[in-house]
């Protein structure tokens, strides 16, 4: 009984994670056993907005259907990338800009003074 509940909880959590990354399950969605078909090819779903998924090593993949997304998320592509990196890069650009600006102001002031 306990193991059954634990299994349900696991499935519930897994579905929650899939929903978090892939959005709500489409109404007409039918699960496919991909593992049993080694030649399975994912088809693009025009109604599905492509999603970028990340693995633990920050590798990324673009998925184009709910089925493909679910498959990847369940396979471990469920990491949120290190978002701080982008903010750090913005800050880096800000710093370079301010530094260039200050250097420019000093340069032109010195030129004023010399002339």
């Amino acid at each position, binding site marked *: 009984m306990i193991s059954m509940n634990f299994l349900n909880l696991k499935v519930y959590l897994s579905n929650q994670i899939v929903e978090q990354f892939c959005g709500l399950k489409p109404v007409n969605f039918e699960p496919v056993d991909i593992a049993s078909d080694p030649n399975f090819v994912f088809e693009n779903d025009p109604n599905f907005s492509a999603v970028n998924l990340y693995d633990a090593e920050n*590798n990324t993949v673009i998925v184009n259907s709910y089925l493909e997304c679910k498959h990847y998320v369940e396979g471990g592509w469920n990491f949120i990338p290190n978002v701080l*990196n*982008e*903010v750090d890069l*913005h800050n880096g*650009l800000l710093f370079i800009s*301010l530094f260039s600006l200050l250097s420019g102001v000093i340069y032109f002031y010195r030129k004023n003074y010399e*002339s």
Partner: protein
Amino acid sequence: MKVKNKIIKLIFISFVAIFPFFLSNYSDNVTPEKITSDLRFYEINTCSISIGEFLINNLNVSYQDHYRIVANDYSSIKCFGTITGIDQINHVFYISVGTNPIITFFIQSIFWLLIMSLIKKTNNVKITYKNSLILFMSSFFITLSIFVESRFYEKKLYFFDLTLYRSYFYFFIFMLTITFFQYFILESRKKVLIYYVPFMFIFMQVYSGFNLYFLTLYLTTLGITKLVESNNIRKIISLFFPIVFIWSYAALGDNYYLDPDKIRGSISTIYNFLSVSYSSFTFLFISLGIFKLFSNSERKIDLSLIGKNILISTNIILILGYLSSSQPFFNFFNYLFFGLTKYGTRSQEYFSYNEWGEKLAWRGHFPSAETIGEFSALGILILFFLFIDSFKNKKPNLNYLIFAPLALFSLYLSNNRSAFVMLIICILLKINNILTLNKMIKIIVLIFTFIFISSIVNLENLTYSINSSSQKIMNDAILYGLDYNYSSTVEYLLDLQNNNLSFPAILMFLGQVSFLINRSEIWAIFMARYNPTTSEFLIGTGPQQLSNLYSEINIFEYKLYSGFPIGFLLPHSSFIILFIYFGLIGLALIFIWWIYRIYQGRKYNYDLFLVNVFILINLAKSDSVLYLPALTLFLIFILNNKKEFNY
């Protein structure tokens, strides 16, 4: 020393253009694979392979036309210059390259500033509190555009939360940095800058991922400077505020959006109270900026120099257009580094005709075939003036004649027949002006000209009954309207039709003109969309505002006679654009001012008069005012008058 400096700059320019596209993590074990229909490798390894690295391993991608290299604006800074995905649609591969708008903003700015720094300095510029404050103001003003058009930018600027003030602080500093350096580089060359305006047709300088021209930063700064310096202008401008208020008030509660497509940088993407107010002031600053740019030139304006630069530009544009159409690598590179609003054409059908036997226009490098046709014809016209005058002065000048064949070819490819016809008419008027021909010769020339023009223009149009040809535009407008959503223009036309009233003479005249110049269907589409209130009809919806025109009224989505989708079809008349912006009163005032200018030119300088007539007639059937390079160049010719003009 100076030559050495230029060489260093050229090396640096090449470095800026190449280096960012080779950046990637070379220490990882990901090496680019040969591109095939199995794209799993590139789906897994996104943002890991630089486009440079990829092209070295897939050299065929750079020249085979079933590959497309496209910019992916909504991408991370880390992904800049790397492959963010490859898709295959039928037999065409789309290779998407990360072009984060902020990084592109800096790279494009540095590239263009370095190129502009090759122009010889004409004066010194001092840093003062006044110009520092103006730079702050102009940067702040341009940053506001991101706030105003946040719906456009939220799909472009990756990982910036446009609801936070913090984000705008970043944008402000980025804008200020570029505006600062741009101001000092351009201002120290201000006396000769207008001669380089024709090169803007090569370097359109629109930022990738932004609805902004590079030159807008400088013109806004100049515009604010002019406003600060001149008491008179401030007094006149005070009259502008009530009109801005009326325009903005009319947009209250609306929120129409328009994808700017090929007119990016020249229009507002959204129509609401804030955007109308903002774009009105943008228009004001840019206009004052162009005026100041013009008045900054110390010497008398040298038409020959502008003409020669137009010719050189048309030749370069043609070559770039050819490269763009045949090589995917150049198509992408040109888009980014020349700051195009649209990728160069991929069509290589230079001499093709459609099923009705009409030549297909080829636009090449520039987004509009019509505008580039006008530009080429203008260059040839000025060359002809120089040529004639040099013979008249017994100093034959054959320099630059070498550029004429390609300019003529460019005009042919653009299929701009009105530019060609106007070119012939202006040339004949010039000959008539300098030679004293007897009446008989004039009549013979007139007959031959008429026959020649008839062979170019569809003369069979004259065989239709005047009633049906004049009414075609109105009938088409009604057919394009959808009965559940008629525009006020169509309702008015239907009212006349249902009550068996004849169409007003002015509409019949417009209908006949549009029919003869092959604009009746396009202008009918405009009429089907145009849904003005009385105030909008009289004073317009405000400058740079086309969003309501394209979003307010739904019309039939396919062309009546060909069945092709209409898509984003512009009205193909700068006068219609000005009419939408400023209404009937504004358009009338612009005409009065312009005709007065033309009249002045005729009195003192016949060549200038002809150039202005050429521009005026061509603008009637082209959208050139929607491109900043064309608008700036044409305004320079219009703003000229006797005292400042010489060659």
